């Protein structure tokens, strides 16, 4: 559902909310580190983050704290700066001002390759390297000098529903399968935070549902913190612990699903 169809949101949300709350509670139940200090500290502190391109602020003074183990969904109209914001979090782009602290440490002090291993990313289109599925999963760990053995590869693939297909070439995978490989590949570097840039928007309806469920399961099972960009409010309601609304580069609203999506005038 796009932002243009927001009239239908209240009725849709009443149906989604129960499911969302269930997912939230289930997630807390399965979280192995429940109750420890780290479960409730902020893993990402985003502090007055800006990015200016050609004199235009595409991300404008965004300040937000993201709790470890939570799922933050960033919504907003096209051109709101959602993806630009996400690319600043693993420093694929350089902020013009402000910074991000990863577990309390300014991310500019962390070497970019190390930062990006700890803050994994799955993009809208799954860009797979030529070769087999296993080759793709080995890529990230190899950068740290770790040769991923067959067993962990199989375990990762089983998580994303592609068990037994490690040796298969990537050339003929469907969009949904490619996105699953992309997710498993991001998990192979054992990130603490996972950035998802509209991971289901390029998929058909069936694959979209499957990948969305899979992402949610994987994120909860691995106790990951997740920042996901979506233009789909119904999806945000299904997966988010917190929803952040962006417009013209600015953060305009943040809160729980019910706080944000029920707020009057939120997306007008």
């Amino acid at each position, binding site marked *: 559902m796009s932002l243009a169809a927001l009239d239908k949101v209240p009725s849709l949300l009443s149906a989604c909310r129960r499911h969302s709350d269930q997912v939230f509670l289930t997630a807390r139940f399965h979280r192995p580190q429940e109750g420890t200090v780290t479960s409730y500290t902020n893993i990402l502190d985003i502090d007055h983050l800006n990015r200016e391109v050609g004199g235009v602020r595409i991300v404008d003074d965004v300040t937000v704290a993201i709790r470890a183990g939570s799922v933050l969904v960033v919504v907003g109209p096209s051109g709101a700066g959602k993806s630009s914001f996400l690319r600043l979090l693993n420093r694929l782009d350089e902020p013009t001002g402000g910074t991000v602290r990863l577990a309390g440490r300014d991310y500019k002090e962390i070497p970019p*390759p190390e930062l990006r291993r700890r803050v994994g990313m799955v*993009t809208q289109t799954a860009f797979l390297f030529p070769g087999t599925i296993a080759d793709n999963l080995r890529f*990230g760990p190899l950068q740290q000098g770790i040769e991923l053995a067959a067993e962990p590869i199989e375990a990762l693939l089983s998580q994303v529903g592609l068990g037994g297909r490690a040796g298969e070439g990537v050339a003929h995978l469907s969009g949904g399968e490619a996105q699953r490989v992309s997710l498993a590949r991001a998990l192979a570097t054992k990130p603490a935070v996972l950035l998802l840039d509209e991971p289901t928007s390029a998929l058909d309806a069936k694959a979209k549902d499957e990948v969305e469920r899979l992402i949610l399961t994987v994120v909860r099972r691995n106790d990951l913190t997740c920042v996901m960009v979506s233009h789909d409010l119904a999806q945000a309601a299904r997966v988010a612990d917190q929803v952040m609304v962006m417009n013209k580069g600015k953060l305009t609203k943040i809160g729980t699903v019910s706080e944000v999506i029920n707020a009057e005038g939120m997306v007008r």
Partner: protein
Amino acid sequence: MLKEWFANQLLLGCAQAAVTTLVALAVMLLARVREIHLERETVVALVRGIVQITAIGSILVALLRGPSWTSVFLLAAMIAAAAKMSSDRSKGLPGSFQVSLCAIASGAGSVIALMTWAGVIDTRITSLVPIGSMLIANAMNTNSLVMNRFRSEVESHVGLIETGLALGADSRQTVTPYVEVSVQSSLIPAIDSLRSLGIVWIPGLMAGMLLSGARPIYAAIYQFVTISMIFSSSGLTALICSLLIRGSVFSPAEQLVLRPPQIAVPNVRSGA
């Protein structure tokens, strides 16, 4: 036919230049028909070519009578000009002039120095400058080919490169496959020249040596020597360029700074 019309050598040369220019312009118009626009670049290149070579030809006589040491300055000026032209070909690639200057100076310069020291190239200015200029010109072409191909490869694979970066790869490693392709493709002309020597083409240097009375076998061997030197200097230039260029497309924070240009969408009028 032209020789019958023009007894004066200078006039004959002008007429020959006019005929070849007309053929080049015809090719340009043919490309225009196919909506490939080369007009400005072709005209500028033709005008520059004739002006430059005539000017150099006029002063070359004076320069070639100078002492041998002046050839160093001549070759250095040629390298700087080659770097400028090569970098102009690769607009949008950060630091392209510096990369070109280092690559051509090291690639062509080291081969010229080594071969002169070894006695393969005569130290007389009349030998050193023409042969050196051949090596520099070919190194320039190779350098332009590497940079152009590398730029288009990077622009076409932004998604894969950034995926590699996002997985914690070293930035230089993410462009390694594109560097390899660029170097290989840039050396195709030099390798083909070496392979087809004597079969597909007999280069001007050998023809000139034969006409000036050199022994045919020595002329042939020296032609091979020249083409081998061209291959060596081009190969070295390509390798140095590839080493320097891979870092130039990333920021210090290992972010890809080269982006594909926005392709203009043709203006389509809706039907009435």
